[in-house]
Structures are given as structure tokens and as C-alpha cells.
């Protein structure tokens, strides 16, 4: 097996000081391979979002290290860290966060343009990503012309445009009905099957079930993990109609 794409090693994150001190994460370790989707579950306040923010370089750990693609985030200054985030990882949030005045293709191209890619090339890459995800029919639509599920699929495309190989999704189905949420998860799953590393925070067991592994957090500590998947033929005795 190749080296993990994402390595969270012994990470502790403490907020506040003195009596107000709160340990959001306590010695958490986690590895994600390319092609693997890992879900994080746990009660409110268990540290799920803090873990996602630390893994994505949006927050720095109090101790421990995070590396993405072999690059230790703590070794980078703010500018290099921002560059690494733009080039190596993408975020998907509950409320899509698409720019209302831009079309789907322009939204997807935006991270590339912000990173200095010429507009025409960025748009071409955006259309390529939308095409890969079977979303070309949405490319000229504005967010208010798309359903929530369509917007979230475009947001996933934006998170993975260009060279990005690590997607971090914080409750991406939180604003969607169950069926649409499943469809979004299916898209995320397909992207991971195509070689992307994914970290998904969710409180819905049925959505976490799309991941290869589920890590369970409580009070900032990993209390359990489902481990890797079994072979498909072992899942059920017969596995459905042939």
C-alpha cells in the first residue's frame, strides 16, 4: 500500500486558556489514502469540525502534525499554506457557498483563477471537471437556477477542480432531503473511487455509510473505527441478483 495522502498524527487542539480551556481534540491520529473516503461521526461538540479544520489547514493544532501529500502543514507559513490549500484540497460546506453572480462553470473555475490560472484555461478545466462528473448540463446555470442537490454537486466539482486530490466535506448533506443527500454522497463516493482522498463529517449514519471507514469521536478522542471494508463478496451471503 502506498503512503497515506493525509496523515493526522497525535493532534491535540486546545481552545482558550486557564479555566476557559477546552480540549477540542485530544491526541487524534488518522490516515487517509488516495481513493479512500473516511467519515467522522460523533455527538455535537465531539470535535468533528475541529478535526476537519485542522486536517484542512484552516486551524492549527496545539500539538501534533498534519501532512497532506507529504507536506507537513505546520512547516508552512500562512502564504504557502494558503497556496497548498488552493492547489491540493477543496472544501464542501453544508450551504454550498457558490457565488450567486457566477455560473456553475465560473464558480468551479474560481479557485484556479484565484491561484493565477488564466481565465480561459481555468474555464476549460472547470468544464472538464463538470464533464467528468456528468454535470455539463449545469455549466451555464446560476446558483438560483439550480436545486440544492445540483448546487452541492457543483460545489464538489469546485472542490476537486485542477490538481486537488483531497476533499473535505462538513455536513454536505445537512441542507438536503434524504434522497438528494444520498445522490450527493454518491457523487462524492465516485470521486474518491477515481483516486481522491475524502474526509466527510456527518451526523447521519446512512451518509457515513458511503465511506470506506467511519471514525467515531467523543470528547475529542477517537473512541472507535469501523476499519476497512470487507471484500464485496463477503458483504452478504449472496449479494443480490446476478
Amino acid at each position, binding site marked *: 500500500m502506498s503512503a497515506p495522502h493525509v496523515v493526522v498524527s497525535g493532534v491535540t487542539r486546545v481552545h482558550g486558556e486557564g479555566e476557559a480551556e477546552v480540549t477540542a481534540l485530544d491526541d487524534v491520529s488518522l490516515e487517509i489514502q488516495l481513493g479512500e473516503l473516511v467519515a467522522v*461521526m460523533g455527538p455535537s461538540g465531539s470535535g468533528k469540525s475541529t478535526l476537519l479544520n485542522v486536517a484542512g489547514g484552516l486551524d492549527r493544532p496545539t500539538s501534533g502534525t498534519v501532512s497532506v501529500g507529504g507536506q507537513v502543514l505546520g512547516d508552512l507559513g500562512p502564504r504557502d499554506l494558503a497556496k497548498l490549500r488552493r492547489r491540493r484540497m477543496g472544501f464542501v460546506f453544508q450551504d454550498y457557498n457558490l457565488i450567486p453572480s457566477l455560473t456553475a462553470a465560473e464558480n468551479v473555475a474560481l479557485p484556479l483563477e484565484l491561484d493565477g490560472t488564466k481565465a480561459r484555461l481555468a474555464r476549460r478545466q472547470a468544464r472538464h471537471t463538470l464533464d467528468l462528473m456528468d454535470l455539463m448540463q449545469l455549466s451555464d446555470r446560476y446558483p438560483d437556477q439550480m436545486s440544492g442537490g445540483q448546487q452541492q454537486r457543483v460545489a464538489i466539482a469546485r472542490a476537486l477542480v485542477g490538481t486537488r486530490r483531497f476533499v473535505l466535506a462538513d455536513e454536505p448533506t445537512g441542507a438536503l432531503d434524504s434522497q438528494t443527500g444520498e445522490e450527493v454522497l454518491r457523487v462524492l463516493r465516485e470521486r474518491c473511487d477515481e483516486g481522491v482522498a475524502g474526509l466527510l463529517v456527518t451526523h447521519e449514519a446512512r451518509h457515513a455509510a458511503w465511506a470506506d471507514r467511519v471514525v*467515531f469521536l467523543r470528547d475529542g478522542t477517537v473512541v472507535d473505527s469501523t476499519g476497512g471494508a470487507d471484500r464485496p463478496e463477503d458483504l452478504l*451471503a449472496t449479494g443480490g441478483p446476478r
Partner: protein
Amino acid sequence: MSVRLGLMALLAEGDTYGARLRSEFEERTGGTWPLNVGQVYTTLERLVRDGLVEQVGESDAEGRIAYHLTDTGRAELDTWWTTPVDRTSTPRDELTIKLALAVTAPGVDVAQVVQHQRTSTLRHLRDLTRLKRDALDRAEGTGEGADTEHGVAWLLVLENLVFAAEAEVRWLDHVESVLARHARGAQLHPHIVTVDTAGNLPAHQEGTLS
């Protein structure tokens, strides 16, 4: 699940052989409830005895006998379709019993019991979801061996198992929060203290919760 009514439902689609009934039943339900041949023939014999099913002619060259649903059988089947399944008798559920006993059993770490079960159920849910993905591909006619009708039937069976597993995880979350609340309440009222903040039974109070 009534095998009897399941076979009658299949026979309502047309006359067929016992072996074919078995394979059809398993195919529709994804093999979730496997039948053995003996069970199929014993059931068919009883259906014939009760006048719900009848044999069609003699056995063919391969010794196979076709069966046909009688009008009486069709009427009983129609009643089945239009009558809700009886849920008033509560089946024994091992997990429910196990947790109910764990709360009062001395030396049992209830929180661990809950966590281990949740991990196992989440794993099961993940595995079901992988099967569901294949079934979705089949139902949409894009997967290997695409067969829309049977794909949808299998998908619905899987969805049922997914909902059941999801409900179990929710219930386990609920058990955990009730135990934690109970522990907090116990701290405020020490005379009822029986579990610690993690939901465990403290060693000196094991066996005292009632």
C-alpha cells in the same frame, strides 16, 4: 415472512415449477432470506392440500411439475396485499434484551457495549450501502447484469435493511444520551447515583441500579 404467501405471489404471475419458484424468490429478495428446496416443496404440498394451489398436468420429461394458483389462492393473496402486516406481537430482539440487562448487570461497561454495537452496526450499514450502490446501478440499467425490475426489487429490500440499521444506530445514540443524562441527574441526587459520566457502572455501585 410467510414463505407460503411469497410463493403464492410468484405463482400469481404465472404457472411455474418448484425449483423456479425458489430461484425467483431468492432473486427478488437478493438472497436475504434463502430457501431450501425441501422447504419450497413442503410448502407447495400444503398449498395443494388446502386448495390454494394445484398441479398442472403430469411431470415433464425432466420430472418437473408445474403449479398453478387457484381462484381460492388468488383470493387469499388479494387479502394479503390489502391487509397490513401484524406488528402487534413484539419479536424478541437480542440487542434490546442485552442492553436492558447490561444496565443492571454488575461489572458490565454499558458505554462499551453501546459503542461496540454501534461500530458493528455502522460497518454493516456501510456494507449494505456498497450493495445498494450496485443495486442502484442495476436499477438504472447502468451496472453489470442490469435488470431494472429485479434491480428495483432488490434495492427495496436493501433499503429496508439500511433503514433498520440506521434506526439501530439512532437508538444506540439515544441509549447513550439517556445514560449520560441519568449519570448527570445522579450527580445532582447522589442517593440515586448508579452510573458515572461515561455511562459506566462504578465498581462500588455495581448491581445497585434498579
